[in-house]
């Protein structure tokens, strides 16, 4: 019996030792990034070493987490009471954790004016939720058209035929398919749909400014969405446009199945690595836009967790990671853009040597100030629920043959219930 009791004690101590394993050293800051290792290991090790040298006694523990598992890992670390101090979040994750009131407000440390002098206004705006700056903007990306010159030339198109507006894009899609029998583009309209961005770029609001009423069943919205659903139903868009997400957007381009793709210039490197032959024939053009001329800004940001016990140190480190010098260094390693005004005005973003990468970089840097967070509803804590409802309404039009007006009216009603519920909860 004694042996059994001893084993229970040893086992309990073992379990306790596992659960208390995480360090809570007051001088160590835990910093999480999203899927940047091993490609950028040298960069991070270098800037961390420099920070530790400048701040004697402070240690940075860098943890890189896979993008797909990031939200679960962060959530479980929060639940276990061991969150990282500083964390890199994408726009979606930022909205989610901001909605959970888990992120520190940088305006508690810095004034708007002081930050506005350093960071691009649109980048700061993308990190602002309910007047709180829940992150510092980090590296940015914008959209461009990447196209296959050879496929276009074979079909009788030239560089001048590249669409500039969504209207021109729909015409181009039809013309290209009619001429070649092949798809011009893969564009995800049913899963993580691009249609809300299209509507907003055309000046059609998805939701009112106070986030209390959905507006996407207006006449203009129905017309625009009908146009795209007709393209799908008449076979001008790939069948899986309704169920594949943006992550798949580049696959068909890389395999030469479609002539163009609307995505970030950062994907040029992937095309170069995966499909050198396609890359040889690849060129770029500015993104298609609607009547407003606005296009989507993709922003990565750095947040400090509210539960961190070293908030001041964490804020200081976040400021360091996003400063001019470090952002510029980082941008020289990939086709991304800095969120600081000074770094963006560096000659690196203005001088082109006529290679496609530098042209993409210069073009993107010029376009960046016009890029904004088009989808206002991302500010809502239940934005993912709203997004799913919209996506499923589009899928029901394409796959269930529900009339566009009916599907959008149903979705708007569902949105209104959620939006009103939030208003009630806030009161």
């Amino acid at each position, binding site marked *: 019996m004694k042996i*059994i009791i001893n084993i229970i004690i040893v086992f309990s101590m073992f379990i306790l030792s596992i659960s208390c394993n995480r360090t809570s050293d007051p001088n160590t800051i835990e910093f999480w990034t999203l899927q940047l290792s091993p490609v950028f290991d040298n960069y991070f090790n270098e800037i961390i070493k420099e920070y530790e040298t400048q701040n004697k006694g402070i240690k940075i523990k860098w943890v890189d987490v896979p993008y797909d598992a990031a939200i679960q890992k962060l*959530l479980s670390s929060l639940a276990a009471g061991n969150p990282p101090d500083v964390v890199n979040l994408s726009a979606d994750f930022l909205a989610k954790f901001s909605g959970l009131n888990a992120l520190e407000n940088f305006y508690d440390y810095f004034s708007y004016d002081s930050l506005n002098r350093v960071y691009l206004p649109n980048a700061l705006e993308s990190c602002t939720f309910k007047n709180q700056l829940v992150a510092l903007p980090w590296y940015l990306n914008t959209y461009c058209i990447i196209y296959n010159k050879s496929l276009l030339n074979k079909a009788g198109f030239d560089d001048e035929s590249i669409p500039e507006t969504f209207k021109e894009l729909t015409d181009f899609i039809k013309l290209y398919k009619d001429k070649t029998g092949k798809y011009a583009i893969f564009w995800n309209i049913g899963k993580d749909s691009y249609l809300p961005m299209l509507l907003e770029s055309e000046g059609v609001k998805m939701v009112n400014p106070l986030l209390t009423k959905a507006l996407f069943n207006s006449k203009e919205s129905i017309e625009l969405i009908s146009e795209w659903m007709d393209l799908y139903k008449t076979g001008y868009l790939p069948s899986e446009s*309704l169920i594949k997400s943006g992550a798949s957007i580049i696959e068909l381009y890389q395999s030469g199945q479609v002539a163009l793709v609307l995505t970030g210039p950062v994907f040029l490197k992937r095309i170069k690595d995966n499909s050198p032959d396609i890359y040889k024939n690849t060129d770029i053009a500015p993104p298609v836009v609607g009547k407003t001329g606005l296009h989507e800004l993709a922003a990565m940001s750095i947040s400090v967790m509210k539960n961190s016990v070293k908030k001041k140190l964490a804020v200081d480190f976040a400021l360091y990671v996003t400063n001019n010098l470090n952002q510029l260094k980082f941008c020289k390693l990939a086709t991304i853009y800095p969120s600081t005004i000074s770094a963006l005005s560096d000659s690196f973003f203005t001088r082109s040597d006529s290679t496609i990468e530098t042209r993409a970089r210069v073009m993107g840097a010029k376009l960046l100030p016009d890029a904004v967070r088009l989808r206002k509803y991302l500010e809502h804590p239940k934005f*993912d629920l709203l997004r799913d409802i919209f996506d*499923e309404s589009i899928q029901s039009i394409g796959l269930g043959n529900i009339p566009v007006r009916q599907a959008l009216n149903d979705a708007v009603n569902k949105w209104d219930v959620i939006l009103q519920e939030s208003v009630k909860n806030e009161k």
Partner: protein
Amino acid sequence: MKSNKAYLFLLPAFMFLILFGLIPMLQIVYYSFLDYNLINEGQFTFLSNYSKLLSDEVFWIVLVNSFLFILATPLIIIISLTLALMLRESNKTSKFFRSVYFFPVVTPLVISGIIWRWIFAEDFGILNYFINILGSDNVKWLSQYPINLFSVIILTIWRGFGYYMMIFLAGLMVIPKELEESATLDGASRIQKVVHIIIPQIKPILTFVFVVSSSAALKIFTEIYILIPGTPMSNKSIVSFLFREAFERFEFGLSSAAGVLLFILTFAFSIMNIKIMERGEQ
């Protein structure tokens, strides 16, 4: 003293079972009565998660879908048992084919998913390519409900039959050869031997495979997650619903309530299966 030693050996497994099985299960039951998102302190809402679930149309659809996946169970049993009967002789050819058929079991599911996604791809997939050659239009293997459920069932069968084949092979090994030999002498055909000798002899294994594969079908998730991630929730299973509520929407209370209901259903279904099989034996 002897019995004490036996408990000693059981203790580590028992402790793990309590720590990582029983306690989390009880916690899930507790969370199902809360409005809880893992970060904020949960608010006790009694049965509101259950009433929310039961009044949610999508929940009922995913529940029906989960039961539809049970259709895979008889198919998987027929295929794996047939293959086990064909490969029960221990020679080089059968050893080779046993390895071949077991290959999908050891192939990482992510790789299997990618391969099958290319097979089922609607515009550029190999399956539709052959369908086009035969003169038919493209089939929406991945986007059209319930065809996409059928695609998931195909992937599930492909992944699982090798595993169940091995279990049946182990069962077939212990059937006394004399029984089949005397049946042969009595003039029994091959099918008669299978029906009257082999199946009754491996009934406990059949029960086991049926219970395990049907409860696995009820809990199907990864195959759906990999093959048809972008389809509406109404095309998916109850575990997909549970996963979305917990890890995408952080509705841990609602998700726990769905988990409790799934447990009750799986438990009841397994008991029912065992009872039916036992009655068959009697």
